[in-house]
């Protein structure tokens, strides 16, 4: 799904720590996912309006993100606020990075250009524990077919619940390109004493699924 079509899962919440940024791609569109010092997550187009440098290479300072090239700083709304080479300049409002609307739910960061679209709903909040984001060299369609074969109970086209070895996983698939997809997986339910063991178990299972998917993609 494209960012214009609805809510797209772009990272596990736990993978974007405070004051850090990461690049991601949704159906070919490059985005930066970053979290400010106060913990709020932001998803923007991954391009500094100045020289086109990727904002995800930059660094977070407070509630601003700065471009790695020349240090131009942008506030949480994408508006440029400070240009180090011209420290006294009142920065024109036209210098702005296009932003997406973002939200965190089920331990996943979601982004969209259509905030009125429906967010997948799995009912009352039950708590979640991160498993991992699995990056696979195959299409999102093929990743979803493999998940369907494991018994994915769909919530939407790209998301669903997977009962697995006594646990319930929530799975959300991100189409990166036509030959690459990310499978974001979290464990649903209250945390338990053996969380670490269960996280490792499901992470390993997903690695096996990745192997099978890539074997199939290679020999297709």
């Amino acid at each position, binding site marked *: 799904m494209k960012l214009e079509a609805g809510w797209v899962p772009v*990272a*596990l919440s736990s*993978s974007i*720590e405070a004051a*850090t940024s*990461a*690049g*991601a*791609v949704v159906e070919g569109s490059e985005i930066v996912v970053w979290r400010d010092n106060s913990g709020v997550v932001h998803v923007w187009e991954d391009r500094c309006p100045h020289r086109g440098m990727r904002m*995800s*290479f930059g*660094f977070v300072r407070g509630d601003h993100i700065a471009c*790695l090239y020349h*240090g131009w700083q942008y506030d949480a709304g994408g508006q440029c606020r400070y240009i180090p080479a011209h420290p006294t300049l009142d920065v024109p409002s036209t210098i702005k990075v296009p932003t997406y609307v973002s939200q965190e739910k089920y331990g996943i960061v979601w982004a969209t250009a259509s905030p009125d679209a429906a967010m997948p709903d799995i009912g009352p909040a039950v708590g979640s524990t991160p498993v*991992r*984001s699995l*990056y696979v060299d195959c299409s999102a369609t093929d990743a979803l077919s493999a998940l369907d074969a494991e018994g994915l109970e769909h919530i939407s086209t790209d998301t669903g619940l997977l009962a697995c070895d006594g646990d319930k996983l929530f799975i959300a698939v991100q189409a990166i390109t036509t030959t690459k997809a*990310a499978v974001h997986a979290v464990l649903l339910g209250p945390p338990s004493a053996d969380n*670490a063991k269960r*996280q*490792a178990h499901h*992470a*390993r299972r997903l*690695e096996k699924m990745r192997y099978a998917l890539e074997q199939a993609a290679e020999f297709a």
Partner: protein
Amino acid sequence: MPNITLYGYELDENSYRARLLLSMLGLEWQTVAVDMFPGQEHRKPAMLALNPLGTLPVLQRDDGTVYGTAAVLLSLARSHDQEQRWLPADATAFAEVVTWLGFCETALGPAVEARLQALFDTPGDEAALRTAARKAFRIMDDHMTLRHFEGVEWFAGDGPTLADLALFPSFALSRDFGIDHGEYPALRRWIRHFRSLPGFLTMPGIPDYH
């Protein structure tokens, strides 16, 4: 202070590995800059007399000369790391560290070559080198995903070791040859931990955030 001389090249990641360890061990050293590109001085008689393989870095101390990246790192740790933190004495942790050092010399070779190709147009199959580099980074990311569940943020043992130090540069520099960090969340977390260690220093391509 021991008398230490390091022959290296500023943009060479293997020379950076040696500098990193010298710095993190709190040692003082002299640098002899070797013009690797475009001069190819590392492959000319003056340097070949020190290291017949024509590689960098080369470490020179009063008791002799050491070449080969892993050899330089192991030797520095053996001589100057009194607490045996970087090369643990514990047999299990030691085995893990040398396994990753081996990984660095073999599986990460394509990442080193891919970067030199991108920067200096050295020969090689670009697509094959990048595919192999991605494969190595994925093995590292899978490993660190599981380590994080165990509550450990380092590759081997229970603290930072030569394994982390030797692996760090290739991943930190991967954007030089077009591999972004987006698909390696566990490695992103790890490099942030590594960057915060005392004595950490950067090189061109590894930003010093200001």
